[in-house]
């Protein structure tokens, strides 16, 4: 009974850490414009729209976070083998991984932006100075919380994978969840803020991203401020739910029915999510209505 209680407590803590990680990951990637909406940041100068948006998408979020989290997990693992306190080891290892992220971000911005020189897009040194450190700070939060979560999975819940291998698994999953959930909010709602609310961006508008703020040109820091209102928290909820439910069903039901209890619990959870999804899909169709009438479509 005590082990189950401990397991539930660790599950809750791991879920909370994952929630923070997901929110920080999405905000970091939006400030650095690393997700799929980056295609528009790269396209804009080619369409004649010069901007001051940061641009570091030389890799997708999942492999990038797979790398940074694994570096941190590997270094922390090595530190702990030498007898270092686990909390200190994870903090120092995350800081070291963030330096790798900083180098990655700087070189990626310089490389991607310099490639647009023929379209007269300048490389802004002040953008590097002001934005890179902010992405590094958010990356630190995401990396530290993910590695701390992985450490809990190994030490408290007894997962057989070593810490660096868990870093690969959950680093890639973090990037996948964060980019899947957060990208549309940044891409549609922020970059194309001037387009109609409640509709996709017409393909003909591609590249015409919003480049001006209330005063002066829009900064990537403003994009982080905006997406932290919904895209970031939604990504956090997504990754937090994934981690929490995966652990919860295993910790509570693994011993039921010779191991099948956790499987059945997982199937039930998936079906519940499926029903919720269908409900909100129908809700949207009823409340928002069609864009055009069915006869016009067939005409």
């Amino acid at each position, binding site marked *: 009974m005590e082990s189950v209680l401990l397991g539930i407590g660790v599950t809750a803590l791991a879920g909370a850490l994952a929630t923070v990680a997901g929110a920080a990951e999405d905000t970091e990637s939006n400030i650095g414009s690393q997700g799929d909406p980056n295609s528009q940041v790269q396209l804009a100068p080619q369409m004649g729209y010069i901007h001051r948006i940061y641009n570091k998408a030389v890799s997708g979020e999942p492999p990038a976070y797979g790398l940074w989290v694994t570096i941190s997990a590997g270094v922390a693992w090595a530190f702990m083998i030498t007898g270092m306190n686990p909390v200190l080891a994870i903090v120092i290892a995350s800081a070291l991984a963030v330096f790798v992220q900083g180098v990655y971000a700087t070189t990626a911005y310089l490389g991607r932006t310099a490639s647009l020189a023929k379209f007269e897009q300048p490389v802004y040194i002040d953008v590097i100075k002001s934005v890179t450190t902010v992405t590094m700070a958010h990356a630190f939060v995401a990396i530290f919380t993910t590695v701390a979560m992985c450490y809990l999975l190994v030490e408290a819940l007894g997962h*057989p994978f070593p810490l660096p291998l868990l870093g690969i698994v959950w680093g*890639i999953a973090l990037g996948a969840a964060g980019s899947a959930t957060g990208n549309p909010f940044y891409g549609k709602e922020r970059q194309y803020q001037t387009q109609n609310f409640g509709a996709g961006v017409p393909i003909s508008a591609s590249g015409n991203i919003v480049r001006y703020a209330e005063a002066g040109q829009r900064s990537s820091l403003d994009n982080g401020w905006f997406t932290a209102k919904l895209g970031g928290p939604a990504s956090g909820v997504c990754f937090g739910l994934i981690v929490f439910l995966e652990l919860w069903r295993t910790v509570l039901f693994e011993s039921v029915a010779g191991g099948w209890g956790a499987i059945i619990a997982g199937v039930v959870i998936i079906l519940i999510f499926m029903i919720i999804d269908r409900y909100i899909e129908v809700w949207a169709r009823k409340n928002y209505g069609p864009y055009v009438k069915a006869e016009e479509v067939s005409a």
Partner: protein
Amino acid sequence: MTAIAAKSTASEGINPVASVIGIVIIIAAVAITAVVANFALAALIGVIIGGLLIGFGVHFVPVGGAPAAMGQSPGIATGVAMLAAGAGLAGLFGGAWAAANPEFGIAIVIAAGAIGGGLLMAVTCLMVNVVYIFGMGIPAASGKVAKDPITGDSQAEYKSQGTEGHGLPFVSYVGGVIGGMLGGAGGTLIYYELLQVYAARLPEIFGATAEGVLPVAISLAGIFAVGMFLMNAVLAAYNITGTIEGPHDPKFKRFPRAVIGCAVASAVAGLFAVLIVVV
């Protein structure tokens, strides 16, 4: 002929010559294993089946890439290989956890992997629709079919002007969950088969106890499973070329080609994974 006028050479069908060459490579890999490492023959077959499951499963995952991030096309706004990898590796996490319990047989281990992958996709697909519907006020609409094959909902009038659709219609949601489950099961099968081989052979090679080398066996099997997962996911993504809405998308019919490709790649990679405990 200009580049614009030229038609894509990527066809839906299977290239017979390439397929025969691939099958010969598979037979060669199996034959080498049978001769050099007969004890691992079943494991290699398991690895090949795992690769097939991953390659097939990736085709179910609804991925819209960059256009989906602007609400210009349906699907999840990220890359095919990476989303599939995220789901499959989450499944591998669950499968490996179940495999650590000696009381559990292969059926529970594979099922645990499948549910882990399916759970990630179920949560992610729901949150994608939550952001589209409640964050952006956009209903789900497919660009590839007039009606959702599962619910029968008409799609065309819910597409906003100048787009190919947006969000995840229910058929795409179900496809995502099935894809995650197949990926999780495939990755876990690869891990489980390799773990059996390493756990049996490493004590003899290292001259140590079975308990002593178990962490090494788990790490080796885990890293090979992760690597083979990414390899198969990327191969399938090349077959899809960009975006796919799910099982109702015409591109889904391309899956036999990816299945052959993934089987060949898994056979060769599996051979090397087995050989490291023979040489």
